[in-house]
C-alpha cells in the first residue's frame, strides 16, 4: 500500500468520525420502513431512520413491518426483509485502491446483497449459523430460518462453505439449501418463479410504505422502447436473421457461373 493510499484511508477514517468519536462510518441507511431498529456498538438500541450512519459492528433488526436498505461506501447495497437480524461484522474499504473486505452476519430473516467494489474482488462474505457464503460478483438473496439457510444466486459466483463441505453456485437463478453447519450444502437447483416473486415482494416496501422518503409520485426514465428511445442495452430488441442462407447460395451461383459452366478459351492462333 502506497503513502497516498494510507493517507486516503486516514482521511476517510478521520472524516467519518464526525458524530461518533470511535465508530467509522461505512454506509448509510438509504431507506427505512418502521419499525426497524439499530444497535451501534456500545450503545443502546434506537429506531433506525433514513440517512442514519451505519458503522462497523452495528446491529440491525427489523420487525414484522420493518424493511431497510443500506448503502455502503463500495456501492454495495443490502435490502433487509421484515423479521431480520444482522450484524455488520467487519467492513474495511479503501476508496483509492477499491480494496478491503466486508463480513455481515445474518442470524435470522432474509436479505438481498447487490455487489459493489468489494464483492467484485471476492471480498464480501455473509455468515449464517449454517454456512459461510463468499460472494464474487455478485448479487444474491440469502434467507436463514428454522429450516437452515437458503442461498439464491442472481449473478456472480457464490461459494458456500461449512463443516460439511463446499459448493459453488455460478449460474444465476440457481439456489442451494444448507440445513445446518454440519450438513453438506445441497446441490444447486433452479429456483421456482414463485420464490423469486416472494422475495421481490418481501425485500422492499409494502403498499402504503415509503421507505421514510415521501413524495416520489412518478419517474420518467428513458427506458427501452419508451419515449422513442432505444438504448443499446435494451434487451430483446428485435432479432433479425442476418444469415438466411442467401449469401451462401449466391456464392455458389457466382462460382458456378464463372467457372463451372464450360467457359472456354478460343484456341489461340498459331504464332507465325
Amino acid at each position, binding site marked *: 500500500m502506497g503513502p497516498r493510499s494510507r493517507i486516503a484511508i486516514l482521511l476517510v477514517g478521520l*472524516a467519518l468520525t*464526525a458524530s461518533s468519536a470511535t465508530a467509522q462510518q461505512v*454506509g448509510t441507511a438509504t*431507506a427505512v420502513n418502521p419499525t426497524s431498529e439499530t444497535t451501534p456498538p456500545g450503545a443502546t438500541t434506537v429506531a433506525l431512520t433514513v440517512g442514519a*450512519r451505519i458503522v462497523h459492528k452495528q446491529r440491525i433488526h427489523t420487525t414484522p413491518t420493518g*424493511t431497510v436498505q443500506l*448503502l455502503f461506501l463500495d456501492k454495495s*447495497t443490502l435490502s433487509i426483509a421484515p423479521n431480520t437480524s444482522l450484524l455488520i461484522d467487519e467492513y474495511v474499504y479503501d476508496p483509492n485502491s477499491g480494496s478491503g473486505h466486508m463480513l455481515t452476519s445474518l442470524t435470522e430473516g432474509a436479505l438481498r446483497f447487490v*455487489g459493489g467494489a468489494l464483492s467484485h474482488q471476492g471480498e464480501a462474505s455473509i455468515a449464517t449459523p449454517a454456512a459461510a457464503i463468499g460472494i464474487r*460478483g455478485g*448479487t444474491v438473496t440469502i434467507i436463514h430460518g428454522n429450516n437452515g439457510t437458503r442461498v439464491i*444466486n442472481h*449473478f456472480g*459466483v457464490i461459494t458456500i462453505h461449512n463443516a460439511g463441505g463446499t459448493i459453488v*453456485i455460478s449460474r*444465476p437463478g*440457481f439456489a442451494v439449501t444448507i440445513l445446518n453447519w454440519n450438513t453438506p450444502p445441497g446441490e*444447486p437447483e433452479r429456483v421456482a418463479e414463485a420464490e423469486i*416473486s416472494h422475495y*421481490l415482494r418481501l425485500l*422492499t*416496501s409494502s*403498499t402504503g410504505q415509503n*421507505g421514510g*422518503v415521501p*413524495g416520489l409520485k*412518478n419517474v420518467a*426514465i*428513458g*427506458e427501452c*422502447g*419508451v419515449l*422513442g*428511445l*432505444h*438504448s*443499446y*442495452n*435494451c*434487451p*430483446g*430488441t*428485435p432479432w*433479425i*436473421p442476418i444469415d*438466411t442462407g*442467401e449469401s*451462401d*447460395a449466391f456464392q455458389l*451461383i*457466382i*462460382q*458456378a*457461373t*464463372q*467457372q*463451372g459452366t*464450360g*467457359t*472456354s478459351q478460343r484456341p489461340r492462333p498459331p504464332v507465325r
Partner: protein
Amino acid sequence: MKSGGVILKVHARRAFGSRFAGAVAPLVLLALSGISAFAQTASDFAGTLNPLFQGILARPSDLNNTLQYAANASADDIESAIGTYEQLLFYNPTLSRVRFELGVLYYRLGSYDMARGYFKSALEMRDISPELQQRAKDLIAVIDKKLQPDQFTGFVQTGVRYQSNAGAGPGPQTVLASGRIFNNRFFSQGDWNWFGAFGVNYIHDFENQRGDTFEASLLGYDAQQFSLHQFDVGLLEFRAGPRFGIFTGTANAMSIKPYIVATGALLADTPYYGGMGGGLTVHANVGSVALDPYVEVVQQSFRNSTFYPLASGFSGTLSTYALPASGPVFSGLTWQSRLAYAHASDNYGPYSYDTYAADIWLPWNFSFPNDSRVWTLTPTAGVSRWVYSAADPMIDPTIVPRTTEWRVGLGLDIPIWKQLILGMLVQYRADESNVAAFTMRDLQVSAGPTIKF
C-alpha cells in the same frame, strides 16, 4: 426535490452524462460542503467516489440526485444502478417504470429470473402505460423461452427479389472485349425470383453450473427464378455441437463449442453440392464487445450437371478462419462485423483460392412516439479479395485470377404485428477482376415478410 412528485427525464446519453458529472464534480463538492457533517466527509473523497454517489450517501432523500446517479450508473455499473433503483422502489413500490428498469438491468446481468419477476410486477402496477405493458410482455416471453431447458427459436421468411444480374455473370461487352468465349447463357441478365428461407435453432441446457448446452441449427433457403431457371437454388445446412462454459459467472466467462456441419445444395433443380465438416468456436466478451471466433474445415463435393459440366473441379477442402464480433455504438445503434480468411484446396488446381473478407452491419433500432414497436434500419458494407492459386487454361492460361468484390446494402425491417416483420433490402455488388469472366455488377431489391418464433 418537488414535494408533489419528481419528474426527471433521463435521456439515453448516459455516457455523456458520466462525463458531465465528472466535469461538474468540483461544483457538487462545493455545494455539498457545509450541508452536514457527512457532506464534509464526502468531500474528502474527492476524485475517488462519484459525487452523485456521495450525494446519495449524504442525502439519500434527494431524489433528483438519486435518479441522476441511477441513470449514469446504468451505462456502465449495472449492479450499482440496481441498488439505486431498488432504493427508489422502497420510496414508492407502485412505480411500474422503476420496476421495468430493474427488469432491464437484471436482464443485462443475465439474471433472467429476477428480470422476469420485476417485469411481471410492473404489469401489476396501475400506472403502467400500454407501451410499457407491451414491452414487458414481450420481454417476459423472451425470458420464458430462455429459461426452458429445451429452447427453440427460429424464423420463416419469404418474398420476391429482383436482381439486375441474377447469375452473377459478366457483361457480354466485357467478355467480348477480352477476346474470350463465354457461354452466353450465363451473361449478365436481370430476373425476378421468389425466395423462401427458414431457420430453427435448438438449445438444450444441461442445467449444470458451467452452463453447458447442446446446440443445433437447421437453415434452409430456396429461390425459384421467374425466367432463368439455371439459377434456381436450394440450400440446407445443419450444424450441431455441445457448448462448454468456462469461468461461468465471472467477468471472464467464455464458452467453447466443437461442432459438425453438413450442407447440401441444388442448383438448376439438380443436386449440385454436398459438404461435411466440423469446426471449433469460442464465445467471449471483452468489455462490451462479443467475440465469436471460429475455425471450420469442410470437405466439399460438387457434382457436374448439364448446366455446370465443370463443377466437380471445385471439390476439395475449404478451411475458414473467421472472427465475428458485435458491440454497441450508442443509443439504439449496434455494430456487427465479420473478418474471415478462407483457403480452398480444390481437385482442379486452378480453382483453388485464398479469400479475405470483411463485413460490417450497423443495425439501428428506433421507434415512433407512442408506439413500442421497434423498426430496424441496417446499413451494410463488405469487401472480399479472391486470389486464385494458378491461371486457368480453360479461361486464360496467362492470368492468375484476382478478384475484389465490394458490396453495400440497406435493410429496413418494419414491425407489422407481434412477431411479423416486413423486411426490405437493397444491395449492390461489384466484382472487379483481372479476368473478364469474373467481372460483374448486381443490384438486387427484395421485400417480404418474416415471422420469428
